[in-house]
């Protein structure tokens, strides 16, 4: 088991009323799964993903990741955990505009104190694998959306994570580009990477091994 969530609640207090975003979420992910979280806008998909990614905390509930109780960990240990095991892919790619393709991909390694020589080798591998060697010195705004997302995925994979979290990864792409990205995910999944994606699209969800439907913060069975 890679991770499990038990009795997760997340709410906001608006004018004395409690508005639930997530309500009693129980959820388990095995290694090697490819999960799609689906649901209408505002159903809590992104919040759930952020909680899994340890960027956000619920108001109640427990979260185990690789048999560690995440919310009992110290900030530093938690950071260590997600730096090592989790990669993020965003709908808006979120590349750093001031950095080149190469530097963008390299950044997570810098934060993990990987040595320069090793970093070079790893980034070169990644550029090679995604066929973007020729674009390594370009800046994000010189790339198409599909290419930017490719860089985003390369950056997410560079630290060899066990889990990729993707928030609408194809949301800003045309259908052809989107299909390519999903194909890539499929391939990564077969290579053993666990993937959790948030999506609106049935077509994208079809790539996954398992679908979680979310409505008003509750998982529909």
């Amino acid at each position: 088991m890679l991770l499990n969530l038990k009795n997760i609640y997340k709410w906001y207090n608006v004018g004395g009323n409690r508005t639930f975003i997530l309500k009693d979420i129980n959820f388990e992910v095995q290694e090697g799964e490819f999960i799609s979280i689906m649901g209408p806008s505002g159903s809590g998909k992104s919040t759930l993903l952020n909680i899994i990614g340890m960027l956000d905390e619920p108001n109640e509930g427990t979260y185990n990741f690789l048999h560690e109780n995440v919310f009992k960990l110290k900030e530093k240990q938690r950071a260590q955990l997600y730096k090592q095991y989790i990669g993020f892919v965003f709908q808006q790619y979120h590349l750093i505009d001031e950095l080149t393709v190469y530097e963008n991909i390299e950044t997570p390694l810098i934060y993990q104190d990987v040595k320069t020589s090793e970093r070079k080798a790893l980034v070169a591998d990644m550029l090679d694998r995604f066929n973007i060697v020729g674009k390594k010195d370009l800046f994000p705004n010189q790339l198409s959306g599909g290419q930017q997302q490719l860089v985003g995925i390369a950056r997410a994979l560079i630290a060899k994570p066990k889990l990729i979290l993707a928030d609408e990864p194809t949301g800003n792409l045309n259908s052809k580009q989107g299909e390519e990205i999903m194909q890539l995910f499929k391939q990564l999944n077969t290579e053993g990477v666990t993937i959790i994606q948030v999506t609106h699209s049935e077509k994208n969800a079809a790539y996954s091994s398992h679908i979680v439907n979310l409505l008003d913060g509750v998982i529909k069975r």
Partner: protein
Amino acid sequence: MKNRTVMIKNYFKTAFRNLIYNKGYAFINIAGLAVGIAVCILIFIIIQFQTSFDGFHAKKDRIYRVLSESHRADAGGISYEKNVPFLLPDGLKTAFPQLEQVVPIYASHNDELQILDDNGTPVKNFKEQNGVFYTSPTFFNVFDFPLLSGTYESLKDPNNVLLTKEIAETYFGDWKSAVGKTIKITGYYSMGAGLFQFPATPLKVSGILATIPPSTDFQLKLVIAYGTNFTGDKQYGFQQPNWNQSTPDFGCYVLLPPNISADNFNQQLKGYASKLQSVNQKGSYILQSINAVHHDAQTGNYSSKTISKELINVLWLIATFILLIACVNFINLSTAQAVNRAKEVGVRKVLGSNLLQLQTQFLVETFLVVVSAVVLSILITVLALPYANQLLELSLSFNTFSNPAIILFIFAITIIVTALAGFYPSIVLSRLNPVNTLKSKLKASTTKGVSLRRGLVVFQFVIAQVLIIGTFVILEQMDYFMNQPLGFDKNAIVNIPYRPDSTGNNLTDYLKQKLLLNGVQAVSFNSNSPIEENNNTFTKFKFDHAIKDADFQAITKFVDDDYVPTYKLQLVAGKNLKPSPFTQEFLVNESLVKSLGIKNLEDILNKEISIMGGLIKCPVVGVVKDFNDRSLHHGLAPLLMATNSTMYRQASIKLPTVNIASTMQTIQKIWEQTFPNYVYEYRFLDEKIANFYNQESQLAQLYKICAIIAIFLSCLGLYGLASFMAIQRIKEVGIRKVLGASIANIVYLFSKEFIILISIAFLIATPLASYFMNQWLQNYAYQVTIEWWVFASAGFIALLIALLTVSFQAVKAAVANPVKSLRTE
């Protein structure tokens, strides 16, 4: 027309609301500007005061001071002094009947005044260190000092005195009752190298002068008729027909007729002087305009307070720069706020506002901020003024009614600051593209300003660091002044004014014995301390029966035989003076020997030196090692020392190492018993020396305060820029955090930029400060070298304070939850 007023009303309304909504920013803006403006107003008041000296005299454009131009070995060519020979005023009157007025004036020091009641019995004693002047009624034809009662003409008759209202109140309680009363004055007067005592003289109060304004170098207290006592004495005093030397504190002022220019008169004066002087004297006289007197630090004046034109310029420069720093802050903060205001601009543009209207709106906002800042700055000024007065020993007042220039200045500053601070932000803000702003895509349009803002930050820190370096250099120089070995012992030595009597050495011997019995380590009676600032008397002398005077003058000090051991002076040749009530032997310093061109110190021994026109002729018996006989502003000068009990004015007492307080009490008792009619005073030598450097210590304080304000204001600006960058880079920070960046990583990301900016500022500030401070140090005969650590620590301080400021914003950005900044919407 009506539309326009609605519009203007609308401008003010939105501007006001905007300030209320952005309280934090508004506060920083207003506070920063207010501090900057307050500094400006304060400096303006100081400068206005300093440049207004003796500007209230109706004839000020025609009043001139006569300076003696002379040649001294140590001054390297021509030097000027305010002292003139006694005969000069009368000489000028005869030679130049066209002069409207010629005023002789003698400033007396350390006079003892005794108040007598109607029966002639003494009631009270007072001592005036300065403020006692001897002059003729013509003084009041030239200078405007109104009378409350009596007449100026009464000064025609000797033994009449005019008191100021304050002095009359101190002496008699009520100034109205003072007229006609009698005061007895005792003191001494200088002539050449000598200080001569004059007998107690009764003076009749013949009039009361109105309060003397602070902005004059004539801080009158008692004005005694010229001709009283020594000033009218033909045998020993100022009327000696053959006395042809200038004498300390005796000056001459003239009132030129309107049709003669100073240049023209100076020509005639030169001709007059050349006819007057004997062959070997190359001296002359020159007129100096009254408005230059207060700024002439070299010659000084009767108030002993001067401020050089350079210092006034430096003050202006500091005021301007601090105001600029404050404006830069405003620009930085307002353009940084563009991010927050972008949406408003977009909406307004979509609704049909044009560029000009938007710019006007932002200018109105700036105007409101500036007006609030000005109001606050006036408050700060009023609160800070007493401290400034205390620091600078001035009596400035913030009186807008009597001083319309201040109102004008404040008005001008409001306009200038609004223009300086408001113009650029209004353009930046109004140019924002509505399509981008409404989509919240600010990047392209706002990054352009960043390089300008960076430039402005560099500018601010250049100024701040120059001021820090300046402060350090002045402090270092001060430290040098204080701790430099002077060549004599200055510790635990107290000087007490002393009145000689006619018994020769009897009184001094009696006092010495009594003091030594009470545990003091050593006692010497003398005319001057080893080191003096303005109190040195230079004298001409003839060496070894020469016909001509030596081509330089020497300082003379009259000292007893205990002077050398008390001050631990070192004899390098010959022997110490022998005890004597008269002048029988001379001690000289090495510098005098060298100045005479004698190589071997022993060679001067037993040669004769003659001073005071041959009145005193004695052999040299010893040479002392050079010590600093003048304040460290100047190099040391040739020195003559001799015994003469009538010239001693103070007792120098070396205190024991323990029981200082009880010893001081014993001394006071002895003094009060011996001199019942005089006020007891004492002064420690090290305090007196520290006082020489008062002006430097004030300057150091001023620099320190300005440096602190500059740093403070720069940091306000930096804070603004950092918060702007935090907003601008919020997305990047979010991404980096998701990618695993720690808080330290993010803080470093922000700090790196500012480290670079401050380093650039440091590189610019260092040569600038080093140039200016070296210029400043040129004023001193003894200078410190500016050490590398001065620059290093200035840079380090600036960096440290800046990083602290920045890291506040950086940490805030770093701990923010990335989920918020990266939210997909």
